[in-house]
């Protein structure tokens, strides 16, 4: 679709009938595409996942001390395992070059405060814990404090490196004159020559402005029982990275190329999706189907991806990423998953497809005989409801009946604790 559109956009001078035909085809194509997308029977599972770590006998969380510490932030694991030889030799490196992240203690306390705020937000909305104190002040609500044996104090040690380069690089611009009367081969050749010349650095060198933001955040969280100061779960360490450039040549960077690739691949994959074409239409549609929601989600605010974000934005994004990762460790969370339903008892399958897992469990439990598929579906309903050990039990029972089924094997592996 994009291709046809582009083609039409680029050649508006084409004959009218031709354009009209294109549009007719396009409209037809769009109709079909929307039809298939919108009405396909999709089974999406809204499932509850248990916390990754076992937190026992804790009902309350108190926010302790979030402090800035200095030290080295380990590079993304993909870089460490790779060879370091080509790390410094790339010609696309801009100076000064960043090849490691050394956090200093002099970083403003702001980042630690933002990590705390993001963490408290997640804990307050997503976790079963009652928060006693959210700002880490010593005072607290005296007089109403619960049993200290059930209170955990959450501390954080924050390492943060942020480099924002606002600068210029000399980029070659090879200008040329094309004769429109030339044949297609000739004009293609001309553009190839021009591109080749630019790549090799020929042409006018002109100072081209750019902004590049590079940041790394590492936080070590520790959860201590208030009564005895013991670790409730082992200290958890999370890091996240960011790199993005606005303007200038897209291939050059201040960050060593291997690190940059690892960061883009492992930490920034979901970003580009948010600004996609369809999501913009969805947003615009929301403005009259649900104006309250439209305002509440900030869709009325203009967003232009070509404007570099502020440093506050950067800090909040990274802080949130780390906070989300940690909260999953200590609290159950919901997620959408694509799981396969086996072709068992049709009533049970209907219930699972309708996301009615509790009903499905009750129904399958009440059946006299259960096939491997039914047993698997029972496990699925348990898994979707967040009861992983029960799910595993039934997946295993299913595997006993049908030892060769790959779907069941995958399910057993998935639910290993």
């Amino acid at each position, binding site marked *: 679709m994009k291709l046809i559109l582009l083609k039409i956009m680029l050649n508006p001078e084409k004959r009218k009938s031709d354009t009209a035909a294109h549009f007719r085809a396009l409209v037809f194509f769009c109709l079909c595409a929307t039809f298939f997308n*919108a009405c396909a029977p999709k089974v999406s599972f809204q499932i509850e996942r248990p916390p990754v770590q076992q937190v026992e006998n804790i009902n309350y969380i108190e926010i302790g001390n979030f402090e800035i510490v200095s030290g080295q932030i380990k590079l993304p694991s993909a870089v460490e395992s790779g060879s370091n030889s080509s790390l410094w030799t790339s010609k696309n490196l801009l100076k000064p070059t960043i090849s490691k992240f050394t956090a200093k203690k002099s970083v403003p306390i702001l980042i630690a405060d933002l990590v705390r705020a993001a963490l408290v*937000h997640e804990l307050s909305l997503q976790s079963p814990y009652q928060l006693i104190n959210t700002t880490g002040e010593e005072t607290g609500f005296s007089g109403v404090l619960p049993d200290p044996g059930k209170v955990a104090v959450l501390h954080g040690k924050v390492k943060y490196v942020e480099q924002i380069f606002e600068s210029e*690089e000399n980029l070659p611009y090879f200008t040329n004159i094309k004769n429109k009367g030339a044949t297609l081969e000739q004009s293609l050749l001309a553009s190839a020559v*021009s591109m080749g010349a630019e790549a090799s650095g020929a042409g006018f060198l002109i100072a081209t*402005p750019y902004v590049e933001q590079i940041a790394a955040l590492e936080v070590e969280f520790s959860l201590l029982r208030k009564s005895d100061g013991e670790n409730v779960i082992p200290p958890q360490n999370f890091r996240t990275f960011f790199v993005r450039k606005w303007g200038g040549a897209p291939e050059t960077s201040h960050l060593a190329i291997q690190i940059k690739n690892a960061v883009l691949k492992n930490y920034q994959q979901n970003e580009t999706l948010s600004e996609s074409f369809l999501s913009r239409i969805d947003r615009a549609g929301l403005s009259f189907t649900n104006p309250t*929601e439209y305002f509440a989600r900030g869709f009325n605010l203009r967003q*232009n991806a070509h404007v570099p974000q502020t440093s506050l934005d950067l800090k909040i994004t990274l802080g949130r990423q780390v906070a989300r990762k940690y909260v999953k460790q200590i609290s159950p969370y919901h997620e959408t998953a694509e799981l396969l339903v086996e072709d068992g008892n049709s009533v049970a399958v209907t*219930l699972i497809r309708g996301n009615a897992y509790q009903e499905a469990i009750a129904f399958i439990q009440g059946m006299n005989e259960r096939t491997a598929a039914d047993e698997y579906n029972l496990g699925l309903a348990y898994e979707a409801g967040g009861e992983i050990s029960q799910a595993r039990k039934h997946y295993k029972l299913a595997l006993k009946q049908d030892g060769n089924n790959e779907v069941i094997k995958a399910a057993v592996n998935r639910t290993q604790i």
Partner: protein
Amino acid sequence: MNNYIFNQTLFILFFVAFMLTSCAKATLTVLSPAEINTKDIKNVAVGGFEIGQILLKYKTERNGIWKTHPVLLNEEQQKSISRSVRARVINLLTATPYFKVVFTDEFEKLENDAALQQLVSVRGYKTQNVDAVISGKLWLEIERTDGVDLSKEGLEYFRPRSRSSYGLNLTVDQVVWWPYKSTHGTLGLEIKMTRLLPTEVVATTFETRTYSQKIGGRTVESFQQIAASFSSILASSKPSKTDTIETSEDVLPSFEQIIADLALSIASGFVRRVAVTEKTVSYSIADGNFENAKILIEAGAFDLAIEQLQLATADNPDPDDLYNLGLCFEAVGDYGLALTTYREAWQSDPENLLFAQGLGRIERLRREHPQLQRQLESR
């Protein structure tokens, strides 16, 4: 060329029309439970909004040389920004029917969260009839940039063929500088609701909104232009006050305007979390015996539909009618009755996916809003 523009509009209208009508589902406005349980909280007072950071700056860029000029704000100016954000939150809270805002400056005068905790702990407040206090902390950064984009453009020269010459049709590449002005604003706002008796932190939210706009600069690619025209066509179809200078595409808003917009959005997000809200959903309506029900449900007259459907299903419990009855209960927020009715419908026709989906929706609500669980169990 005219025809081409006509076609483009036609195509957009087609697409939009289809987007709106695809799938034979009815669009209903139903009640959605509060994400945060604010039961028993009726009167709220709003405390001060602490300042985490306020940073306003101007940037300029010429020939790749960047300069930053921060706007120096004294304490009073910073406080005034914080108060304007607070005013937006109060504004929206007073507009919801679920809370009564108690106007007192007793809590606002407190310096920070610690002071508030102290006051609440010792119950040193004088204002009576306050169930909870809302306080906040804000982080703000806005920058405005005045700069120049650089790109290579092909300029086309055309001279028609004449008797004396062969004509000319050349494309000449040229490096073009495109001046632009842009702005980017970020507001992070932490809002906390503390219940006074028994003292507890009911909820804390930390929301961020950003605003970015650019005027001038290199023109966007054609594909993005289509996207923009989509949004503008859709946006212009609703009556709005957006034709004022402040919100025009061609004017960068002032710092105050950006702060106000960002704060308003966050505040409505917060109100959505603490109050029962209406949301628009598209659910399927079953084709029951009682056809009027469908019309009533589509029109949003749920109470009347419940009355009629209860009468109809008393004599003849048709599963489709029962499902529609459940749908009405769900829409008015009576999830306990919705669950029982959906279950009844499903028991008569256990392989009907629609009925299972009704059950699934209630289960999901129950999973994601633990306070509903208690409401359901008490039935």
